[in-house]
């Protein structure tokens, strides 16, 4: 197809027959050379596949027609430090098996490895390595993009504010972001005003937020791994999210944060060794939170007033310094249909052997409060004084300051909801000394 008439005919034919134009497309091999890639793109026609031979190609590349770019291995596109390396301005573009590096550092211009412009739908970004860019992959207002098995390591020699996100997803629907890893830059995946997307099986390590999530409804966030980030999964101002089987290891502040996140399911996640909070539930209502494991964190769950109608059951609380921090004045039942949660500090008996403790457990009693305010009192946790206080409180519920009640505490922890990755540093994060004074207990 060397002239526009033939191209037009082909396009009409393909539309009539409802077959993909790629069926008639050419397979073009490109070798490195001064602006060889840019020329190849300019000369190619929609549906063509450009196979890039081993070697380094100069960017920036603007793809304004439905092309497939295939690296054979050892294929590098390098911008040498200015602007965006690959900019996609057409629907139906595929980029596969390429190393992309050397974007500029202008955040206001979204200097990035791959930038998909609004209206460019159905992009497939597959098996690429993006390194030394400001942003990795920017999906800017497009539909049905697939980003799979990419490795992203953005520049981290800039101040955090001036760094870019691994994925920056704005105003998207139908995206599938799967099997990627992000190991440097600002946030792993920043998603905003994007509804109906799937974020699955990605790994985020050594970042500010693994997943930074603002106003994005009806999404799935599943099977992701966050390791040693400042915040693991921060899900904010969103409804109907499925948060399943994610792992957070040693994140500093929050393993998993539900902030003004409603009507969502948070299940089978494993939060381990967060410096501050395994799970922070802030003004989030009508959530189903079950079968998660919260282990070795500063606080198991920090739960605030105004978080109503949440179902909380089947979770395992293991060896958190404080199992539950509750700042509110109401009582909540934390069990469902006779199934509560496992509390590693519950000194309970199960004389009838039904697998549930014989008495209800209140994870934030006055004792917990004393421990919370005066951490040194931990030394006395098994002392007669503390046990007496617990006993007194049990007899007089009016002494409880409000909080969670588990009427059916489990006698053993649930099975591991998901395996910890083998190749990860499992060191818990350090506690933040600045938070030690964050006492907010209501006045009694």
């Amino acid at each position: 197809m060397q002239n526009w008439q033939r191209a037009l005919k082909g396009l009409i034919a393909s539309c009539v027959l409802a077959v993909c134009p790629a069926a008639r497309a050419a397979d073009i091999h490109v070798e490195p050379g001064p602006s060889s890639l840019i020329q190849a793109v300019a000369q190619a026609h929609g549906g063509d596949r450009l196979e890039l031979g081993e070697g380094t190609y100069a960017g920036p590349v603007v793809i304004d027609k439905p092309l497939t770019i295939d690296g054979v291995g050892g294929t590098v596109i390098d911008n040498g430090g200015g602007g965006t390396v690959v900019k996609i301005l057409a629907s139906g573009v595929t980029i596969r098996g390429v190393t992309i590096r050397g974007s500029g550092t202008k955040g206001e211009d979204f200097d990035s490895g791959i930038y998909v412009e609004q209206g460019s739908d159905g992009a497939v970004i597959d098996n690429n390595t993006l390194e030394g860019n400001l942003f990795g992959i920017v999906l800017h207002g497009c539909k049905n993009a697939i980003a799979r098995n990419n490795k992203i390591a953005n520049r981290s020699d800039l101040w955090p504010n001036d760094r870019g996100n691994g994925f920056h997803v704005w105003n998207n629907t139908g995206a599938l972001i799967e099997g990627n890893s992000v190991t440097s830059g600002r946030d792993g995946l920043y998603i905003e005003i994007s509804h109906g997307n799937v974020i699955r099986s990605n790994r985020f390590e050594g970042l500010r937020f693994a997943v930074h999530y603002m106003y994005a409804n009806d999404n799935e966030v599943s099977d992701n791994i966050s390791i040693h980030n400042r915040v693991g999964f921060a899900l904010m101002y969103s409804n109907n999210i499925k948060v399943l089987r994610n792992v957070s290891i040693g994140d500093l502040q929050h393993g998993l944060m539900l902030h003004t996140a409603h009507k969502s399911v948070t299940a089978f996640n494993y939060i381990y060794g967060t410096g501050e909070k395994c799970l922070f539930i802030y003004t989030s209502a009508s959530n189903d939170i079950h079968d998660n494991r919260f282990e070795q964190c500063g606080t198991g769950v920090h739960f605030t007033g105004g978080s109503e109608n949440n179902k909380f059951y089947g979770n395992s609380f293991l060896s958190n310094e404080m199992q539950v921090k509750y700042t509110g004045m109401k009582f909540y039942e934390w069990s469902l249909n006779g199934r509560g949660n496992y509390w590693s500090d519950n000194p309970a008996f199960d004389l009838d052997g039904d697998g549930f403790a014989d008495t209800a457990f209140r994870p934030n009693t006055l004792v917990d409060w004393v421990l919370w305010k005066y951490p040194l009192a931990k030394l006395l946790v098994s002392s007669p004084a503390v046990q007496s206080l617990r006993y007194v409180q049990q007899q007089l519920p009016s002494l409880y300051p409000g909080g969670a009640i588990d009427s059916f505490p489990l006698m053993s922890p649930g099975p591991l909801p998901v395996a910890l990755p083998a190749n990860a540093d499992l060191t818990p994060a350090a506690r933040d000394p600045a938070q030690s004074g964050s006492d907010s207990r209501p006045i009694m």
Partner: protein
Amino acid sequence: MSKSEKEGVSRRDVLGTGLTAATVAGASGLAVGGAAVLVAQPKAAMADSDEENHKKALVPPGKLDEYYGFWSGGHSGEVRILGLPSMRELMRIPVFNRCSATGWGSTNESLGIMTEGLLPQSKEFLASIGQKTYFNGDLHHPRPSYTDGAYDGRYLFVNDKANTRLARIRLDVMKCDKMIQLPNAHSIHGLRLQRYPKTGYVFCNGENRAPIPNAGKLLDEPKKWNSVFSAVDGDSMQVAWQVIVSGNLDNNDADYKGKYVASTCYNAEEGITVAEMTSSDKDHIVVFSLAAIEKAIKDGKYEEINGVKVLDGRKTSKLGLTIYIPVANSPHGCNAAPDGKHLIINGKLSPTVTIFEWDKFDDVFAGKIKGEDSIVGNLEVGLGPLHTTFDGKGNAYTSLFLDSQVVKWNIGEAIRAYKGEKVNAIKQKIDVHYQIGHINATHGETKDADGKWAVALCKFSKDRFLNAGPMKPENDQLIDISGDKMILVHDGPTYAEPHDATIMHASKLNPLEVWKKDDPYFKFAMDLAKKDGVKLGVDNKVVRDGTKVRVYMTAAAPAFGLTQFKVKKGDEVTVVVTNVDDVVDLAHGFTLVDYGIAIEIAPQATASVTFTANNPGVHYYYCQWFCHALHMEMSGQMLVEDAGV
């Protein structure tokens, strides 16, 4: 816990800390086992309890507070005066609202203030719907006037986001005395004042982008809409000049040298939908050079639009009035530190604060360095940083909306960390309830910042107070910042909806106890009386001028100077009442039954109201502001003759 910490603690110390819980048990009359042991611990160990902390905020009956707090009333349209640390509400100042108690919005005095500065276009619109002025306002920011970076106790300036107005409150009488509507701007949000040499300019951020002029053209061309930055002369309350900017304008602040004003922008994209407004990863701050602007005005580089000198300060302008510096998406608070050197920009969507050095803007304007080079610090403080206040000892306190916390951090250490030194500038975080917006400390916006108290203005109270129905109060919390650690000491429920508060030591103000009877505030009545040959506060007299009737009377507890007057149906009646009592706190009122009229007359004040007497019959008027043992008897009658009967 470190080994040394463990070893350094005796069993007795630890036991003492259990007291709070034990006291609860003890107070219930229990003496069960270990609990009784705990009760026997020394009382000093309780000093850290919430109850004990709360006592710091208590001001006993008969004692006075140490500080005045000026609270914005948000969309209630009023200002409230609180005493600190008690957080007791002392007074309300109606401004953009109508007030049933004081007659604000219906007296001639208040209507004069509320209408004289309205734009012709608005006056015409209001007349078309049968109104003289707006009935609502959205008052966000109360800002006391400055001389040399310190509060001088003259005025309080306040913005109206709802109807694009600026008002001034006289701090000697705590009443609004001037109000203007700003031409060419749309919705005034950010408001701060010139600090040096004095106020001076009042800087008003036009938040929304709209066509200029905004009169029905360019409706479908949002790219041609603009935000406008206005400087109003605080003494004359006239617009001195305006600058058109790129993006919008959120919050602003001025330096301590009288050279620059900076403003945050959350929509550099110039979008219309939420998605469009957030599509970029960066927004900007814009810095205005006062010298460059004043020179451009002098050189005639302006265009006069709606009677105001308007300059072009957009990114494309060659006039050199502004610089634009990119910062992380959606910055919000803009706070000048009392050290006079630094400006803090709060990240909102970015968990960071950015520290700028004012002096470096000299070189940015001169083209010697890039805008970004005026940044001297960038500190991650927590999620959702909105506003920052200061203690004058080098520390900053930033509100974290998403974390619902206040973080204390050290400015000097943050700057050192930015230079690469290993130093942790974060000192402490405490929870607040819930979702804090503004935070402001005692004198935190002046060079006299004294580091005593800070108020955390929380947007939600949720379960912190007795449930008063589906609408909840806000929660303004008092924090003791005088020590190393912040301590939360008080919850304060407030009605819709304080956005910001400024706090001033009581020694800075000396309001009048009674009015001066010839105060210019009463000019309308004084001029009228003069024309009618009436001595205000002395004569009780009815003056008829065709169908216009003026009724002059005194109010002296427990009687009005006129106990009856007669008018005809359809007359335009003006009632002028002077409170001749000069006793402190002896206010009178004038309420006219079935006429919807009630006005306030403070000691030695004169107030007036004009209405058409279309409702015939006998109409009592009475004093509604309790004044005397015979207060109930303080009344009279307006007799309205109906000629047709």
